[in-house]
């Protein structure tokens, strides 16, 4: 794995490359926190695309690996602060799962810095803005992930049998 990481780093970064980051945000806190950033007209880079789920507890690790294996350079997960979960303890499961994802990424030879999870409340537009900025810069430094083939070979693929997208 370490050799592969080294090989990858020597690859040339395509011109005009922009990091592609998928953000899974819980609706009650973090999605609304991103709304707060908008209402306050805070500015941040356009690299994080948000997918809404009701609770961060819904974020199946497979969604994260699917994103990375299909062209995402990074994944952000955000939920309510511990103790503030709209579903009481939904985010406790997120808290338990996310460190494992870092480990899985390490095992796959992916820099764990491409993955970040944060607790962002509905009022924390500023924090959301900061996280998006930092994450975008972090992934930009790491360069394109561009590893879908290797991930498919590792048997991760996009898992669930979604026929419309082929093998």
């Amino acid at each position, binding site marked *: 794995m370490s050799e592969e990481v080294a090989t990858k780093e020597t690859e040339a970064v395509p011109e005009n490359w922009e990091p592609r980051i998928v953000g899974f945000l819980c609706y009650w806190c973090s999605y609304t926190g*991103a709304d707060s950033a908008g209402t306050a007209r805070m500015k941040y880079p356009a690299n994080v695309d948000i997918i809404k789920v009701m609770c961060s507890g819904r974020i199946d690790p497979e969604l994260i690996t699917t994103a990375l294996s299909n062209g995402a350079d990074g994944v952000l997960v955000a939920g309510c602060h511990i103790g503030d979960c709209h579903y009481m303890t939904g985010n406790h499961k997120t808290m338990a799962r996310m460190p494992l994802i870092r480990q899985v990424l390490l095992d796959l030879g992916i820099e764990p810095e491409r993955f970040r999870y944060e607790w962002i409340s509905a009022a924390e537009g500023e924090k959301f803005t900061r996280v998006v900025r930092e994450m975008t810069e972090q992934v930009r430094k790491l360069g394109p992930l561009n590893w879908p083939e290797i991930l498919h070979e590792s048997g991760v693929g*996009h898992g669930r049998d979604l026929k*419309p997208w082929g093998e």
Partner: protein
Amino acid sequence: MSINESTFGAGNGESGMEKPRIGVFVCHCGGNISDVVDVKRVAEEMSVLPGVVHSTTHMFMCSDPGQTSIEEAIKEHNLNRVIVAACSPTLHELTFRRAVARAGLNPYLFEHVNIREHVSWVIEDKEAATRKAARLISAAVSRVPYLEALEKRHIPIHGAALVIGGGVAGLTCALDLARRGIEVHLTESTDVLGGRMLELYTVFPTNEKASDLIDPLIKEVQSHPNIHVYLNTQLRDSTGAIGDFHTTIVTKKPDGGEEEREIHSGVIAIAVGVDVYQPREGEYYFGKSPAVVGLLDLQAMMNPDGPTGGKLEINGKPVKNVAFIHCVGSRQWPDIHEPQADGKINDYCSRYCCTGIVHAAAEIREKYPDVNVYDFHEDIRTYGRGHEDWYTKASEVGVLFFRFDPHKPAVVEPDPKGESALVVKCKDRLTNGLEVEVPADMVVLGNGLQARDMTTLIDLYRCSRGSDRFLLEAHPKLRPVELASFGLFLAGSVQGPMDITEATAGAAAAASKAAALVKRGFIELDPFIAKVNEELCTGCQTCLNVCPFDAISRDEEKGIAVISEALCTGCGTCAAACPSNAIQQFGFNDAEVMSEVLALLGVVKKEEEEVPVG
């Protein structure tokens, strides 16, 4: 079953196929969006995506003409999926769902895309913003074929209420419900109704006798035909959910035996009240001298019908000097106060004690003019209507105030000269740090309020708690007297420190909310709950452990998991945990979310698939 089972697990190519006919509506928001995002170009790009048969823009999608244009397009183009790209869904998702429904389409075949708060207001570069808007809408185009026609859950509500706790909040709540014609079961753990108010003599701000207020309330509750009172009664067990709670209660009988009953109720109001903080041994000399008492002890002493016949005395010795100390067990500091067994300190304000103290202090000066009164505080917060009047009055009748630094609180110790029982000392910030010392035959601690041990209650009803240990409302402004689990209401100080005024206001609010539900007879809940595919479920029970609401049980006969429609709140945690992919969450099933992920990354469908339309 209110959810259309035939369409469950859409995208699996099984039943009810129809080609998607998607309508995309991109909003200018009067320039809020279109000044940054090239909405015309985005609409054109969307028009060539698979399934899209109509793609357009409008100056204000949410306006009447905007909504009408959606309704007309649905009919004209025979649309079976609708996407509106506009502001945040928190603002207008419901508006557009309704518009879609008016045109005869199921409102859950609609998808809202946020290109204002998440794009035009935050992305400065116009090209980047336009690209991002296009990506987000294309993700919706990819997602909507998998949407299912859903129905709101319709849960009937049984027409009776259970009120737990017979203090002033429980009594108020029970009476308000009963007056609306609702049958009420009121349980009380002790052998009397009335709660803490029975321990009070006079109450602020009106200076009325507590008994004049609480006695008529108790009498009315006892005689009301709609109210059943159960004294000496505890909770034992609970099953069911909103609309259909079955609570087992146990009543201790005078002969030592117990009687078990099952209470069937549609709603439950929790009014178990609070505990008064019990100072630690030695805290302000408490426990070391009988002269250190609490505010409630003083109230009893001032009552002519009380143990001392209304005389201020300690062990029969008349009191000449009284010192009050504020914030005992409230507003504690991590570097000063030792945490309790749960590792927490009471860092909150208990709200009743400041006014309680200045009221008692002024009353002592009025009724026992020979007694000197000293007040030691770090701050005074007499915030309620009429409360400040008592502070002013206390100053006018000669109460002396001293203000200490919270990090150097007042010290209570025996009088070295032996003239009075104790002395109270502090460095007074009101006189620029003067060291003061006053004699005290009685020290009255303004003991704060603290959540009770509610272990059984929390276990039975899955109540959420704040970090301050009090029960936590679903939202402080939008759902201030409800728990996150539906059908459970918070009445009074179980929710946080409150004075009587606030507790009764909270109780009345809980009664109105509960009554509105009971009187309507049913509740409609969002359909985004989880469901088990019986064929895929292996009965491993992983989901039972992750559900925050105990909504999942095991069907022993079939050996599979079953999710209660009434208890499920739709977080989707079980769907993420299920190792067999047997659990799917309506509105957020794997196909729906995966298709969004892939479309965002530009992974496009190879060919147009047929998908079911509900």
